[in-house]
């Protein structure tokens, strides 16, 4: 085996409350295509951020081409020949393709002015090498996503990159773009570029990789040769943790149907896949927890937003609440009808960071505190205080700033905000993200209690064990379509993972693999 081009030696990265990478050691051989897989939150992104110089503060050692290295920024990583192509592309849309490639190291003529001609010529040459017909003079923003991605690859090549990190590169591509992308990968390999490839799509990984490394919960589980393993084995390694003893909600009994969704389509204007959600139908009963599984971008949040009247586009299809057809054009209408939603990104979409715990709890139900048309602060405090007590929110008091609370307690505050509206249906979008283990268990018990009171809950989560622990039924979304539905008894992580990685273009290929 040749000397590794990258050696990662016992790298540990801690974030407040979480160990994102735990003593990970990995070697990357020159010229190989090395895939990194793992569930959401397994530590893939953290590892790539360390390699590309985005994260500079970690324990352990990194050797690039045999030299111990510690990058102090992405520039340093680029100088060492490592470039990263993020899932969210990093282009200045208002500049031309050529200008984007040479951003920050523009070619100048002898008067010190920009030499656009030289940059365009060089850009054209780079793009031709990638068999890609982009005019270097067009604005980056006017290109399709697939072309934008090739532009980023061209930029990386112009940096004399020999190690390229790609984070979910095909997630936004159409079928034909994916094929072209595979050909580009082949060309890169002919140039002996080492590629680190992150993807959720198993068919892709098995088609492209030489070796596959599986991460789980911040640990490196195993590095496998592609030829010596199977898709089944890899998915098993990805999810294969000991499943905790399930004792929550075993004897829950669902009541009447509260919510029915029939043939729901959500348009996605300006995107290659014209529909964000395609033909979704399901029903939800009183007192049950319906889990929604799916990878990033599968449409989990969008589905909840449709039910809550918060989607950007108006969905097509029928939604019936307690038998009556409903159309919500604004969340206030959904709130009035008895639907509540706890949003995914707590900081950005949930809390009011300038306000106190009391104000954050009472914001949806201030009308109950009115006396003579004015908000009565005694009533408001009573309302908030009771909710703080019943959910056991740990806070210095109802006047404490919301930002002084831990993630789990902030989440309870927001759940409390919505429980005050006495909802029939509670939509929880990844409620335990960024919440520590103890608080997670408390949130699970809380959901169970609410079910006992007859509330119907729809729960999404990026963690499968969580869905398996609390859900009565689990629906699986993949690229906007419903690909499977499991009862509590029949659901396993393996089955869900397979259904979640099936989808659109990858469908047939993945089926072939899962049979082998």
């Amino acid at each position, binding site marked *: 085996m040749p000397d590794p081009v990258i050696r990662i030696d016992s790298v540990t990265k801690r974030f407040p409350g979480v160990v994102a990478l735990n003593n990970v050691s990995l070697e990357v051989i020159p010229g190989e295509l090395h895939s990194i897989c793992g569930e959401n939150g397994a530590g893939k992104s953290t590892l790539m951020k360390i390699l590309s110089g985005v994260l500079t503060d970690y324990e352990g050692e990194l050797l690039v081409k045999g030299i111990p290295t510690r990058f102090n920024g992405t520039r340093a990583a680029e100088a060492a020949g490592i470039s990263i192509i993020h899932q969210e592309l990093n282009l200045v849309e208002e500049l031309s393709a050529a200008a984007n490639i040479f951003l920050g190291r523009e070619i100048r003529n002898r008067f010190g002015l920009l030499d656009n001609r030289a940059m365009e010529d060089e850009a054209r040459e780079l793009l031709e090498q990638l068999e890609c017909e982009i005019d270097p003079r067009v604005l980056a923003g006017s290109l399709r996503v697939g072309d934008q991605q090739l532009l980023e690859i061209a930029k990386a090549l112009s940096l004399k990159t020999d190690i390229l990190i790609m984070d979910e590169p095909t997630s936004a591509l159409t079928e034909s773009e994916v094929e072209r992308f595979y050909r580009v990968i082949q060309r890169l390999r002919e140039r002996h570029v080492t590629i680190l490839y992150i993807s959720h799509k198993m068919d892709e990984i098995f088609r492209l990789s030489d070796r596959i490394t599986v991460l789980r919960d911040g640990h490196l589980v195993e590095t496998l040769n592609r030829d010596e393993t199977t898709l089944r084995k890899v998915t098993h390694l990805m999810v294969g943790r000991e499943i905790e003893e399930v004792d929550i909600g075993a004897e829950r009994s669902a009541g009447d149907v509260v919510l029915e969704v029939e043939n729901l389509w959500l348009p996605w204007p300006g995107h290659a896949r014209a529909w964000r959600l395609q033909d979704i139908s399901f029903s939800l009963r009183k007192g049950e927890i319906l889990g929604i599984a799916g990878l990033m971008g599968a449409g989990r949040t969008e589905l909840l937003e449709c039910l*809550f009247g*918060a989607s950007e586009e108006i969905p097509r299809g029928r939604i019936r609440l307690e038998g009556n057809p409903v159309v919500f054009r*604004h*969340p*206030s209408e*959904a*709130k*009035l009808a008895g639907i509540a*939603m706890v*949003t995914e990104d707590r900081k*950005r*979409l*949930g*809390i*009011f*960071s*300038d*306000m*106190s715990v009391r*104000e954050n709890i009472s*914001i*949806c139900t*201030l*009308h109950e505190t*009115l006396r003579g*048309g*004015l*908000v009565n602060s005694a009533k408001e405090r009573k309302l908030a205080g009771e909710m703080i007590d019943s959910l056991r929110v740990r806070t*210095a*008091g109802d*006047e*404490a*700033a919301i*930002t*002084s609370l831990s993630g789990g307690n902030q989440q309870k505050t927001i759940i409390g*905000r919505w429980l005050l509206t006495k909802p029939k249906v509670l939509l929880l979008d990844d409620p335990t993200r960024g919440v520590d283990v103890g608080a997670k268990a408390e949130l699970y018990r809380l959901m169970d209690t609410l079910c006992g009171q007859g509330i119907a809950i729809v729960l999404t989560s990026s963690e499968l064990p969580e869905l398996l622990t609390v859900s009565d039924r689990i629906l699986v979304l993949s690229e906007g379509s419903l690909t499977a539905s499991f009862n509590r008894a029949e659901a396993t992580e393996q089955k869900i993972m397979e259904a979640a990685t099936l989808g659109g273009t990858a469908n047939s290929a993945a089926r072939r693999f899962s049979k082998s």
Partner: protein
Amino acid sequence: MATKNSTAGPGASFLRRHLTEIVLLLGCVVVFAFTAYVNDAYIRLFQYNIQHIIRYTSMLGIFAIGAAIVIISGGIDLSSGSMIAFGGMICCMVISVLAQAIAPDAADPTSGVPSWVIVVAVCSTLGVGVLVGTLHAWLITIVGLPPFVATLASLVGLRSLALIMTKAVTKWQGQQAFKINIQDETFMDIGSVWWIPLLIFVVVACLAWLLMNRTIVGRHLYAMGGNEEAARLSGIRTDRLKWLAYCMGTMTAAIAGILFSSEVGSSDPQTQGVGYELYAIAAAVVGGCSLQGGVGRITGVVLGALFLRVVIDAVAKLIGSGSSDYEGLIVGLLVVLAVAFNQLSDQAGGWKKQFFPGLLGWAAIPTIGCLVGASVLTPEGNPLLGLIAAAVTCVVLSIMKLAADFAGKKEA
């Protein structure tokens, strides 16, 4: 400032939450006492001076409150100055037209008009304020313009429109003019009797305080200013709230427009309220509002307006003639100081930072020197004084920079 943990006793947390107000109040007292000490005429004409400050604070405070409500709700209203001119014009126009209709043959129809005419005029002006606010809200929420652009268009457009309408109305009445004059004494009293603006200011402030602190709408305005998307996802109708906020902004400016016109007995679109939108924003910012939205209190804005006027008045008394030239400079300086004070107190070790690092630091030192030098120039003063002040500032700041650089190097 409002987001600090309030685990201390209720007294301490009250002090902390109202730090801005306390500092402003103390500032007013200090500036006032200092002026009185230096300039003995200040005390001799005590009653006149106080009334003067109160009248102008009220006139500024009324539309500063409107501007502050817009800022707290997460927007910005640049139209106040032109809305003042436009509102004044509408009010005078209605009185003038009605007066002529009632007494077409009188030599001077606009004196001694029945009081119902004035009531109608005031109501129409407020109505026009609502219309302009509605236009802003429509442009922002439906058309999708940034608040800055929508209200900027009003800032430049309304003043021009006011002038066009003034010319049209005066021509139609006989003699084309740039102003509409109103001779009526009752009307002129509204703005010139010192306690009437104060009374209106107090009423507006109390209503605004009630709205912002004791009603659902007020709480929702704070929520929307702090996090608009979270507010929408909490079932708050953010579009309607914006409509209300922008109407508050233009209605308060319309009220101020009536006062400014009645003070001089005419509407003058070319000069009235020019640049006042920035004074209103300045008062709000000095009073503790964050331009990011969600933060600020009506009490702070009231004191912010008072502080601005007290300082402007003090400088006027100290300099004497030509003092109005200094108004803009003072407002600019106070805004920078107030916001810098808020920012730096919020950052850990904010005051200890190196203020003149690297190349930008070297470039900033002569800039500030020139500013100081130019500011001490007075028409009668010695030009040499400015040069000396500039040089001394540069030297002092350079020494500070070198000392900080040296300390920084030592640490590394």
